[in-house]
Structures are given as structure tokens and as C-alpha cells.
């Protein structure tokens, strides 16, 4: 039982980070049909900025704030300088642009920071708590609470603010949204800002546990993408569920079956789910118009 709890907690912690990345994917996809492969880079930029700001003597809360500002700035620049000028191009072209942006951001991080692994001091110390025989890091609980707060805030933003409702309307039907006067181009811009913000907070939450370096973004993007598809592309609830499920699959797969093949186990389950439910767990069935 203690073992089970241990795996469950580590799975949920990692899964929460995947969920945040998957949420970022979902928001941008809903606004623009684009899969933003630089999503993992937001997490990296935020973690690295905070680490180096803290090392330069800036107090941790300010360093964290700076990291968020820098990451959101990257999100705005990505949209303004790379996505907006290519308006009207096909999604495949835009995806290649985001891959280019991810290579660019990785290169910038390697030059301006370094290529070593770094960590941030955990918020609540590193004495593990004992929960039913399982040792749980306080930071794990902070990651879970933080993710919960972000998901709630995002839900409130989407359902209770005009801007959020405009995003939902754009996701539902872009043409109809434009016809009722929603500036869908601005919605895409906002989706990049919110995705970068979520990625930045994810980076701050995760770095004390998972460490960070200039190259972690690719793997995170891959996992976040898989999580978003597992949950059903375009569904925020699906993104969260997919992320947590992917984290749990990896943790239990590594714990009970094989740590070498934990990613394989996760992907076999994803494939099995997609064969049974081709739209993911929470996805809408798409209707092709001819």
C-alpha cells in the first residue's frame, strides 16, 4: 500500500506538470489549430531565468516574478514576430515555425545561461512528509495545489470573463465568432500569452523537483502533446485528465513493470485508448464537411 501511494504521488506530481503543458497546447490549438511545439520551451525559459536571477542575488519571489515576465514576453514575441506575420499559412507551416522557435529559444538559453542542470530551492523545505508509509516531498503537494489553482483560475477566466468567453467562442466556431464581432486574431495573441503564463508557472513549480536545463523543452513538449491527445485535443478538461493519467501511467509502469520501458508502457496505453476512442477521452467527434 505504501508503495502504491508512493507511485501514485510521484505520478500525480509529474502528471500535473504534463497537464499544465497540455493546457497550453489546448488553448493555442483552440484559437488557431496550431500545435505550439515551443510550449515545453516556456517551462524551460521560466525555470532557467528564475535559477539565474536567484543566483545573481535577486530574492526568490522577485526572481520568480521576473521569470514569469520574461516567459510571457517570449510568448508575445513568438506570436508577434513569427505567427502573426505568417497569418493565413497552413497549420503545418505554422507548426514548423513553432519548431524553429523552439530551436531558437533552446539556442538562446544555451548561450545566455549555460548547458548544466539546475535546481531551485523548494518552497517548503525538503524534509519528506510521511503519508501512509509513503515519503512525499512538500514540493509535490505545492505542485498539485498550484496546478489546482491554475486550472480553477483558467476555468473562471474562460467562463466568467468576456475575453475568456471570446476564446471559447473562437474555439467553437472561428467564422461565427468573427461574424459576431470577436477579434479572432487578438484571441490567438491572448492564447499565446495565457499559454506562456501557464508554462512559466509550471516551470517554477517543477524545477525544484525535476531540475531544469536548456534542453528539457523537447521532451516536455512531446509528453504534453501526448497528454493533450490522450485527453482529446481541444478539451481543457481532457488536457488535465490526460496529463495526470500520463504521469500515473509512467509512475506505475516504472514501478511495477519496467523503468526502462515506462514511456513505452505509457504510449501503448495511449494507442489502445485512441483505437477505442479515436477522439481521445474528452474530445468532440469531428464532422468532415465536403
Amino acid at each position, binding site marked *: 500500500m505504501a508503495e502504491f501511494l508512493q507511485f501514485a504521488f510521484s505520478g500525480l506530481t509529474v502528471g500535473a506538470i504534463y497537464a499544465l503543458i497540455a493546457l497550453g497546447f489546448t488553448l493555442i490549438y483552440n484559437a488557431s489549430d496550431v500545435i505550439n511545439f515551443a510550449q515545453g520551451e516556456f517551462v524551460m525559459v521560466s525555470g532557467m531565468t528564475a535559477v539565474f536571477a536567484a543566483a545573481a542575488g535577486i530574492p526568490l519571489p522577485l526572481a520568480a516574478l521576473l521569470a514569469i515576465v520574461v516567459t510571457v514576453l517570449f510568448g508575445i514575441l513568438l506570436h508577434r514576430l513569427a505567427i502573426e506575420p505568417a497569418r493565413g499559412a497552413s497549420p503545418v507551416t505554422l507548426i514548423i*515555425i513553432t519548431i*524553429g522557435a523552439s530551436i531558437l529559444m533552446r*539556442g538562446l538559453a544555451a*548561450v545566455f545561461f549555460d548547458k548544466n542542470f539546475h535546481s531551485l530551492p523548494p518552497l517548503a523545505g525538503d524534509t519528506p512528509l510521511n503519508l501512509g508509509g509513503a515519503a512525499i516531498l512538500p514540493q509535490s503537494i505545492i505542485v498539485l495545489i498550484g496546478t489546482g489553482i491554475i486550472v480553477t483560475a483558467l476555468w473562471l477566466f474562460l467562463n466568467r470573463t468576456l475575453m475568456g468567453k471570446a476564446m471559447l467562442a473562437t474555439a467553437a466556431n472561428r467564422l461565427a465568432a468573427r461574424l459576431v464581432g470577436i477579434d479572432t486574431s487578438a484571441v490567438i495573441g491572448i492564447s499565446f500569452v495565457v499559454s506562456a503564463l501557464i508554462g512559466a508557472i509550471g516551470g517554477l513549480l517543477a524545477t525544484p523537483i525535476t531540475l531544469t536545463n536548456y534542453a528539457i523543452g523537447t521532451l516536455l513538449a512531446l509528453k504534453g502533446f501526448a497528454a493533450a491527445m490522450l485527453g482529446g485535443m481541444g478539451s481543457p478538461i481532457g488536457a488535465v485528465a490526460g496529463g495526470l493519467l500520463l504521469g500515473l501511467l509512467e509512475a506505475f509502469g516504472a514501478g511495477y513493470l519496467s523503468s526502462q520501458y515506462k514511456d513505452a508502457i505509457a504510449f501503448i496505453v495511449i494507442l489502445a485508448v485512441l483505437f477505442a476512442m479515436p477522439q481521445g477521452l474528452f474530445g468532440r467527434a469531428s464532422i468532415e464537411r465536403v
Partner: protein
Amino acid sequence: MTVHRFTSKPYMVVIALATLVLLLPLVLPSAFYLRIAALVFINALAVIGLNLLMGFAGQVSLGHAGFFGIGAYAVTLGPAYLGLPVWASLIGGAVFSALLAFIVGQPILKLRGYYLAVATLGLGLLISMVFTNEADITGGPNGMEVPRLVVFGWRAYGSQTWYWISGVSLVIGAWIAVNLITSPTGRAFRAIHDSETAARVLGIDVPRYKLLVFVMSAVYAAIAGSYFSLFDGFVTPDTTGFIRSIEFVVMAVLGGLGSILGSITGAAILVILPQVLTVFHEYEHIMLGLIMIVFMIFLPGGIVPSLAQRFRRRTA
């Protein structure tokens, strides 16, 4: 995503390519350049296969490095464990890739768009993981030495030999691809690309054609993979990794989906550019990312189709 239609003489591309392969050694100053050219040809072969799948039939694959890796390891493991000659292992790798694509393709190709992308991504990762983790057989992350290709007692090594092997193979590969896309099968692919439902209504056996193009593209990738490891003399799991799958997709899109010439251009740019950018030392990746973004902003349909369109507009 419009499909670039070969204007009037589709075979001109093949003839132009053959001429290029014949004449290039006359202007290349040293063996180093022949080596780069051979790498371009090998990558282009894999990208042409991927382009058949993505550009013509409209099916995304983020796992093609898996098939590339099967080819790369086939020529290593076949001679080492089964005592097969290298050329037989090369064919064996292609057949194995085709079989795997045939078996996995049936369920996977029912998925659409990004769902297919994540499924192929998973497939590529699984293949790559087997090569990485089964260290007793494959040497794990350290990789393995690859034996020389021997045909009728003749040993193939060196940049010049591989220039010709890969160059001739690329011309043949491009010729087969052009043949295919100008045939009724090619028209079926394009119909599926435009709308699967409409294609089905027209009486096209959509699953069969999707499977056919998936298997073909897997064979292209496997043969290219075999060449790659034979040429290099060493193979590591990086050959089969996610990054390489992404590279193939970038080559195909950058050069222009639906254009054979585009695939070759895309491969040339992504092979040559990092060599040129080494002068920028640590700024190499920054430059590579910037160039990709700028190309896609100004030539959104891919380099070859976008330039061809501009040229036509000017002359018209």
C-alpha cells in the same frame, strides 16, 4: 495546403536530378563535399517517402525515424547475429519495415490529423526505445560498428563510392515517386488528401490506399536508414530518435509538401546549413531556428512550390 501539381513534364524533375548527380562531382572540390552531398541524397530519399505520405496523401507521421532506424540497425544486426550478407540484411530491413508498417498501419491509419501524429510518434518512440534498451543485442546508447557493404566481392566504402550509390538510388527513388503520383494511384492519394469522405464517395478504397502509401514511405525510410549507417560505419539509437523524425518533417515542409524537388531542397538545406552555421559556434542553433522561421514566413507553401508560384506569376 495545396498540392503542387507537376506543371507539364513531371519527368523533367527526374532528368534534372540525374544530370545534377552526374555533374556535381565535377564542381565539388574535395571528398568532404562529396560526403555532404551523399548525406543530402540519403536524407532526401527518406524525405521523398515521407512526402508521398504527408504531401500527397495528407497523412502525418512523427515517427519515421523509427523505420529509418530499422534500416540502420538491420544492416548491423543481420550480419552480426544471423550471418547474413549486408546486402541481404538491407533488403531484410526494408521488408521488415514494410511488414511492420502494414501491420501497425491498419489500426493507426484510422486516426486522423494530430491523433495520427501522436500515434506515429508513439510508434517511433517504441522502436527507438527497443534499440536503446536492448543493450545486449544493440550495444545500447553506445551504439555498434556497422560492417561494410560487399557486393560480388566489391567493398563499398569512402565518400566517392557512397556518393554514387546514394545519388543513383535517389534518382531511382524520385523516378518511382513521380511514376506513382502521375498514376491513378497518385490521383487517389490526392483525393484522400483533399477530403477522405469525398474520396470514399467517389469509390476510392481509402484504407487500402492509405496503407499502401504508409508502407511505401516506410520502405523509403528503411533503405535510407541502411545507407546512412553503412556510410557512417557506426550506428547509435540517436539515428532512430524523435528529433530525427522531426527533422524529416521539417525537411519535407520547408522544401515544400507535395513537391519531389522540394524534398531534395529541404534535405539539402537542413544537411548543409548546420555545416555552414558552425562558423557561428554557439550561436548555431539560434541561427538555425531564425532561418527556419524566416523561410516559413516568406515562403509559407515551402521553398520550391512558393518560388515556382512567384516565378509563374511574374512570367504570366
